[in-house]
């Protein structure tokens, strides 16, 4: 059985989000001052509206107050949001995915204490604080070598009476500037740290080579109650979820849609430029890359939703999310550049969107540990290489 049909619920939410993006997000996100490559405030009203549509709690179970959406549905939603604004898409992708992981890792008592306030508050976002300064995990020199590439955790949590006392620093924490709850990897395990916990200090991240919002968090004798220690580790989602690839895809689609519209309006050479072979072929090449990327992303998401599919030989035992990541990041930069070229000189103007799509696609290609690292991870997986587990030194 090979079935690519979306469920009625998936189709409905895709239409809902697409409509929301067209009506509420694009008119604001495409204002010239938001297209320049400078730090800009998140669109607060649209974040609130998107939460009211249920996108923040999308991936929680229905019992937990969410929609019980699977990875594929989350990817569909993220792509649609990113067509309008990659920053909104990033914020929701992080909160929704982390919500699901948290729900799984919590004890029933923690769920009861935490989930209702999370579900109720439209401004309640989540941030995972795992990366530490200088704790790069790049594979690079360690390709196919036993050296550990596990991120080193120096942040400590020490029991003091009824509290955990946390000390340490985290960097490149997505959603940090807006999060109401931090999920913090410390020596003892994973802790829930509310934004207003005493001793927690926030700083916005320098540079703007990321989507959404990002910051550094430090903990100086930061105290949280003892039962904020999660019952289980915060496991990555199955074989890796592909929301950030869906975000990348949304950027490419936005560029494509703009170019396709323009190519039918702009007349040079006596006819709309889409009627010239050179432009027609460029748009066709863009459409091919978008479809191939979406197929890879959806397959990775579906694999994550169906972990049994490898055992039953429906899917290859490959890191499909890594494959989607490498292909999508490279293909979407090509897509954005080709789409911008259809606009001639207007393709490089900062008060117009095409140059922003190119920049946004570059950010995806070069953020995180980079495509080269992902490629090496894939190569290790192909050869069946297993890195000996040991803790960092």
């Amino acid at each position, binding site marked *: 059985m090979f079935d690519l049909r979306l469920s009625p619920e998936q189709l409905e939410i895709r239409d809902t989000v697409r409509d929301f993006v067209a009506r509420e997000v694009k008119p604001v996100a495409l204002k010239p001052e938001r297209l320049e490559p400078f730090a800009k405030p998140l669109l607060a009203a649209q974040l609130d509206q998107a939460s009211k549509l249920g996108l923040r709690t999308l991936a929680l179970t229905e019992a937990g107050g969410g929609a019980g959406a699977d990875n594929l549905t989350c990817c569909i939603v993220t792509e649609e949001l990113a067509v309008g604004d990659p920053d909104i898409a990033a914020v929701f992708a992080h909160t929704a995915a982390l919500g699901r992981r948290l729900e799984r890792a919590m004890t029933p008592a923690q769920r009861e204490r935490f989930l209702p306030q999370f579900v109720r508050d439209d401004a309640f976002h989540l941030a995972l604080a795992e990366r530490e300064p200088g704790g790069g995990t790049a594979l690079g020199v360690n390709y196919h070598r036993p050296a550990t590439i596990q991120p080193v955790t120096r942040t400590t949590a020490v029991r003091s009476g009824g509290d955990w006392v946390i000390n340490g620093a985290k960097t490149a924490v997505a959603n940090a500037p807006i999060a109401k709850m931090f999920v913090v990897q410390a020596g003892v395990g994973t802790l829930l740290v509310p934004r207003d916990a005493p001793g927690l200090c926030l700083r916005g991240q320098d540079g703007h080579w990321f989507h959404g919002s990002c910051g550094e968090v430090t903990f100086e004798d930061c105290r949280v109650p003892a039962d904020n220690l999660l019952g289980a580790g915060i496991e990555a989602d199955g074989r890796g979820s592909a929301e950030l690839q869906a975000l990348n895809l949304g950027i490419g689609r936005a560029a494509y849609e703009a170019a396709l519209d323009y190519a039918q309006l702009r007349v040079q050479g006596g006819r709309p430029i889409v009627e010239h072979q050179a432009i027609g072929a460029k748009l066709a090449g863009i459409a091919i890359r978008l479809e191939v990327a979406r197929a890879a992303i959806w397959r990775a998401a579906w694999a994550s939703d169906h972990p049994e599919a490898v055992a039953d030989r429906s899917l290859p035992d490959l890191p499909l999310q890594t494959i989607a990541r490498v292909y999508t990041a490279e293909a979407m930069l090509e897509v954005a550049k080709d789409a911008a070229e259809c606009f001639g000189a207007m393709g*490089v103007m900062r008060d117009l969107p095409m140059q922003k799509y190119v920049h946004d696609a570059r950010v995806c290609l070069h953020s995180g540990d980079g495509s080269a690292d992902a490629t090496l991870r894939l190569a290790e997986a192909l050869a069946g290489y297993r890195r000996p587990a040991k803790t960092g030194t």
Partner: protein
Amino acid sequence: MDFSLTDEQREWQMKARKFAREEIRPISLARDAIEDPAATFDWDIIRKGSRLGFRTMAVPREWGGHGTDFVTQALVMTELARADSAISKAFSQCWKWSHLIAASCTEEQKGRFLKPFLADDTFVLGKGISEHSAGSDNRLPPADDPKAGLKLRAERRGDEWILNGEKAFIANGNIGKLFFIDARTDPNAPLKQGTTMFLVPRDTPGFRAGKVYNKSGWRFYQNGEMIFENARVPHANVVGEVNGAVRKSGGAGGDTTGGDLFGDLELAANALGICDDACEVALQHARGAKQGGRALFEQQLIQLKLNRMHMLTEALRSFVMRVAWEHDRKIHSPNPGLAMNFSTDVVQEVAELYMDVRGGAGCAMDAHADKLARDSIIWSHLAGDTVQRLKVAGRLGK
């Protein structure tokens, strides 16, 4: 077959390298970061470069210029672009149009315009062709749509021409002191038969500059709107013949000294400068930066990227220098256009590879790598866009 440079060529190259390293490089990133597109320009660097001859080096010796050959010009553009592509272009833009003055203007016009150009360190030149609804149509006029192309109108009234209309994206449009303006003098004829070129000084009554375009790359380089409202230009400022503009640009006749064909070499040589810059810094970075206590350079993937960057760059250098050599021998071929098209592919791939080698460190990207990537994109929108490739193919098909 001899690839060596003459002493004079070598001297210009070294002078440009020194100026680029000592004067241009230190201001490059700061000028690029200025948010207001009209404030990125810096007259100080133009004055300094002008005093060294970098503004006027293409003017023939008999008119008081340096009379450098095309090989020298290619070398200098590359060296200047190695420190800042947009600043290099700001200088070479003046050569482009001084070639056109030398090739197409009468002795009387040369006397009127070349002398003040040579005497004034802040005298820069421009040429207005593009309009909002006429970009590709000017480069490749469609046979089946004779009205296509630029619309700016010029009408004869006694000894004057009255110009009405707008130009868009014009280099130096807001800061130039003298412009070549292509205007439609026969609205019923196709572009090539109905366009005339005029010399339009900045203080022409009825002419004013509009906005400066806010580009993502080449931020130092000024591109502006030009607005003509009953602008009055003396008949004595017609370049060549009425309705003969396109021929005079060097576009149709294959005249290598005209502005357009120099422009092909110019963009290819400038791209080479970006590539040299990227190769040099990428190699430095790969040797200096450590990952897990070992130099990045030890990794095969890094070495393969450095190999490809250098391979493409050296291939481009060979092409650029061959085209310059052909120009100096007045050899007509499609090579200038092909070199320009090739330079688009090369500069973009090399800039991407450079960004790869620098990598994203957490949430930041190296500002220099970001600038080179943005600058390199400009080629798609000027030099290597599909229309330019088709135009070059047209030369092949003749």
